[in-house]
């Protein structure tokens, strides 16, 4: 198993953690159940209360006053200054929306790719106005995934990123020296360096609140329970039931994302119910933790290092002139 290799482990626990229990893997003894988010985008109304609640509670600075023209998304992405980000996607309904075709065969967009920038033309061209009544507006509150195998945590050279007893991944702001490695290591593009501060910031799953038995600010503020917080096992069960219900009710395109402990990051601590392909929301379709390949990388580096040494030796021994 990949878990055995390249896991951070903490100094004391080189052994492989049990799957899905990253806190124990990080050396926590008698850790509480792993906590996480289930974000059900099928009931998100795009109110952005999560964004505001997060900023208020965590004292996150403003992310800038700029109209992006990306539907109602003026946040743009998860950044050091936006730990929740509500994505807005305007699109025609996927063919077979009410029908019941295979979800994987109902990619919503098919026809067009809107690149969405100024003067590039209006979003989501769909031809005639008449054909536009079957239209949908997807909204999705994105957040740090708190991966089981977290690339950011693995590559952090200072130990600023750590695994909490709740299985979440948190940056210690007094340790981080802003090397930026985690930024490139995150397969979801979540963690980010704050320009005027130099350190990296991201969702902490409100470590201070959940430690005190409270619900994270975003989930607390969500009016429609699109953001649900709780023990991950429970959330996964709830999510599976919700998908089944949606399928029953004629929404075959509903699918879970990040729920599978066998995916490329060992499953997300914050997973989602989506109504379209992940990339439509700006999510990678098949993320993998980069450190999964690290042993092979060192191997290749070792070969190259030997070649380098050999080259030098040959250069000096290869001739007498």
């Amino acid at each position, binding site marked *: 198993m990949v878990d055995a290799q390249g896991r951070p482990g903490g100094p004391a626990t080189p052994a492989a953690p049990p799957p899905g229990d990253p806190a124990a893997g990080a050396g926590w003894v008698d850790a509480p159940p792993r906590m996480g988010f289930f974000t059900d985008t099928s009931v998100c109304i795009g109110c952005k209360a999560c964004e505001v609640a997060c900023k208020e509670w965590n004292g996150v600075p403003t*992310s800038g006053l700029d109209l992006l023209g990306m539907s109602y998304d003026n946040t743009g992405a998860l950044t050091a200054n936006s730990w929740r980000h509500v994505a807005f996607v305007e699109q025609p309904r996927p063919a077979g929306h009410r029908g019941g075709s295979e979800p994987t065969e109902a990619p919503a967009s098919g026809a067009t790719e809107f690149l969405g920038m100024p003067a590039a033309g209006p979003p989501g061209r769909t031809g005639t106005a008449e054909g536009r009544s079957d239209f949908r507006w997807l909204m999705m509150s994105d957040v740090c995934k708190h991966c089981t195998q977290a690339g950011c945590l693995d590559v952090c050279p200072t130990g600023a990123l750590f695994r909490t007893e709740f299985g979440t991944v948190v940056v210690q702001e007094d340790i981080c020296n802003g090397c930026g490695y985690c930024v490139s290591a995150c397969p979801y593009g979540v963690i980010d360096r704050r320009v005027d501060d130099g350190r990296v910031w991201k969702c902490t799953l409100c470590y201070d609140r959940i430690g005190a038995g409270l619900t994270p600010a975003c989930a607390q503020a969500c009016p429609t329970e699109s953001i649900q917080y709780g023990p991950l096992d429970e959330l996964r069960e709830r999510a599976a039931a919700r998908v089944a219900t949606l399928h029953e009710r004629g929404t075959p395109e509903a699918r879970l994302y990040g729920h599978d402990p066998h995916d490329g990051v060992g499953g997300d601590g914050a997973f989602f119910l989506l109504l379209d392909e992940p990339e439509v929301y700006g999510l990678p379709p098949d993320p993998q933790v980069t450190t999964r390949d690290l042993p092979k990388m060192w191997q290749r580096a070792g070969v190259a290092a030997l070649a380098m040494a050999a080259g030098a030796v040959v250069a000096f021994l290869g001739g007498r002139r």
Partner: protein
Amino acid sequence: MAEAHPVGFQWVMEARKRGAKVFHVDPRFTRTSASADVYLPIRAGTDIALLGGVINYILTNELDFREYVLAYTNAATIVSEDFVDAEDAEGLFSGFDPATGSYVQDSWQYAGHERDSGSGHTATARETAAGLRHESHGAPIAGQVERDETLQHPRCVYQILKRHFARYTPEMVQRVCGLPPEKFLELARAWTQNSGRERTGCLIYSVGWTQHSVGVQYIRTGAIIQLLLGNVGRPGGGVLALRGHASIQGSTDIPTLFNLLPGYLPMPHHAQHPTFDDWVNAIRHPGQKGFWGNARAYAASLLKAYWGEAATPDNDFCYGYLPRLTGDHGTYQQVLDMIDGKIRGYFLLGQNPAVGSAHGRAQRLGMANLEWLVVRDLFMIESATFWQRGPEVATGEIVPQECRTEVFFLPAASHVEKEGTFTQTQRLLQWREKAVDPPGDARSELWFFYHLGRRLREKLAGSPLPRDRALLDLAWDYPTHGPHDEPDAEAVLREINGYDIATGRPLAGFAEARDDGTTAVGCWIYAGVYADGVNQAARRRPGGEQDWVAAEWGWAWPANRRMLYNRASADPQGRPWSDRKRYVWWDESAGRWTGHDVPDFEVTKAPSYRPPPGASGPAALAGDDPFVMQADGKGWLYAPSGVLDGPLPTHYEPAESPVRNPLYGQQGNPTRKTYRHPVNSVNPSPPQEHSQVFPYVFTVSRLTEHHTAGGMSRTVAPLAELQPEMFVEVSPELATLAGLNHLGWAHLVSARAVIEAKVLVTDRLVPLRVDGRVIHQLWLPYHFGFEGLVTGDSANDLFGITLDPNVLIQESKIGTCDVRPGRRPTGAALGELVDDYRRRAGVTPGAVPPAVTPGVPIGPPGSGGDGEGNG
């Protein structure tokens, strides 16, 4: 609803999770549409046509809940033979008086009652927005009425209704609203199939329905459907108004309105109500049925609360101190009076008219012509800085150095920095605690008014002038606490609740109010909120610990009743209509009404009770008359009085429309309130010429991210950044037509103003095919102004001033405009552009289009037309 009421929308989502089907009707695809099962794009301002179509669908297919309709509505009542329907007169009802632009209602009355309609002429009623009084009770009706229980009589309400809406067919709905018939039928089917004995449906509307020149009639149309389907007074039914802010319900109950006193007592009119008895009798209508018989006790107790010991039965409880109405003192008349120099000072609290009110330029010009202006707000808002930074400064219309208005800006405490109650749309009072101290000099409104009154009284102390007695005699003695002498909010709530003056005991309910000066009640409908000396509004027993009606959460007026007219949840014999929908019922063995809620009925009046001849007041209501505040105890499908623009809703085009009314010769609401003032102009509509100069329809509303005029959101970084710029949403088709680019600039022109905005091209707006034409609609948020972290032109600047006749609410949800690419001109060129448009459209400032469309025949005003109008 998701857009402007996301927290309340959680219950819609909850219902959807349980399988409810949600329909959303809106000119543009919003966050609500995104969460709805069916979205119906509609031409703005055509809701009566759509809902009239539903009424026609119900009546044509006989899908009404017949037992309910027959017993609980006035469907069987016979209407006067003098009545001429709009259907037969090109859109005008009988009784129109062109001299005052209002109706004489005599011919609308029930048969045999033509002479006792009270005022008859509605001109004064319109001046004073009298329709607002009916928030808590119906309009007067006297005596017994003729009925036809078979509903076959040609002049019974049912048949009149049927004829009136016969032309509102699915095809006509398509012609007027731009809605395909199959979509319309899907809506009509779902609505009717989910109503009746076993099921109920609820109708939710927001401010977008009220801000029209026919706003009251929109809601009337919805109410007619709900009555026909038996969805009123029953659990899961109703017509729910979502208010525009927290406690707007509270601010009509204890009003911030010129024409009302607390508890919907009308403000006295100088000519109509010279004495206390005149005033009280005008409220209680001696001899009439219903629950207003005790108005004298409410009025006397209110005056006792105002003037305490000074108010005695001998001096009519200081009735003489009450200010009097002399005509229209509504906000728009006030603004025009300011421009004309008739008003010297103005208090502005929790309001930002420079951005939030229609015709922003008029608002700003008016405020710039005062001697003093007091603004209390959380932040420095546009209405406090218009003299220095407003758009009129750029055009030279306001010169800061010369502006005569002295502005006093007083920082206000926010809702978390003070305690008190909010009253929400369900009439539920909920107490809030203070969370933090207000910063700096910020103070609560309570503090401000208490200390303002205290200081004024100190300055006037010893004054011999009679005019100062009203202030000096006030009972102004609230306990205070803290370093700033903050008045005790609970003491105020206790006074609102009312108390026995001799013992100080808080009243248990409004039935304990007396007209002999022994009780003082600040707002009679709130009596009981402080019963037993307990702040009932502060109750917070969790829903899980009580039944589903949750009567122990907060307190609802009246009498902690959670649903009005709940007698209608039982059949005429007092049995629940169905087990599923049981709510309040007659317990035969106990001989009383019982159920989940406080019965909205005399608890021991049996369903079989019939009033003796000549009875009046509550005793005149039968045991199966559930609408106890209505004079005949019935739900009114047809309103013989009380609604000034017609007994039945009728589709009129908005005051500004590119479309000729497809239903009637009459184009707009003939009784709409207009003002002939040089600052005000109206874009031409068909059949006037040049309507094509302003070819597009625009509508404005809110974004989730901002709050109304932006004073509480554009000033706060985490909110401001979420919608950082003023924008206009257009369809791709209109963008192509007008040459607009995504994220480029556009400017919009009306006969009042030109504003600019960034362009968002989106499929969420769809051009509609209406009567063979393509109608393009634009949408704008109205949150932006020139102060705050994010700024932009104000959408409300585009509107002119045209009001609904019943309640004097402005038509600020729809207007016509032109849209052009690029930024707007600045300085003098800006005025020239508007002038040029006016010239091309043939608009003369101050001229108002004729109320009655030329060519529409006007009948005689009616026999009662002795013209009380001040025309």
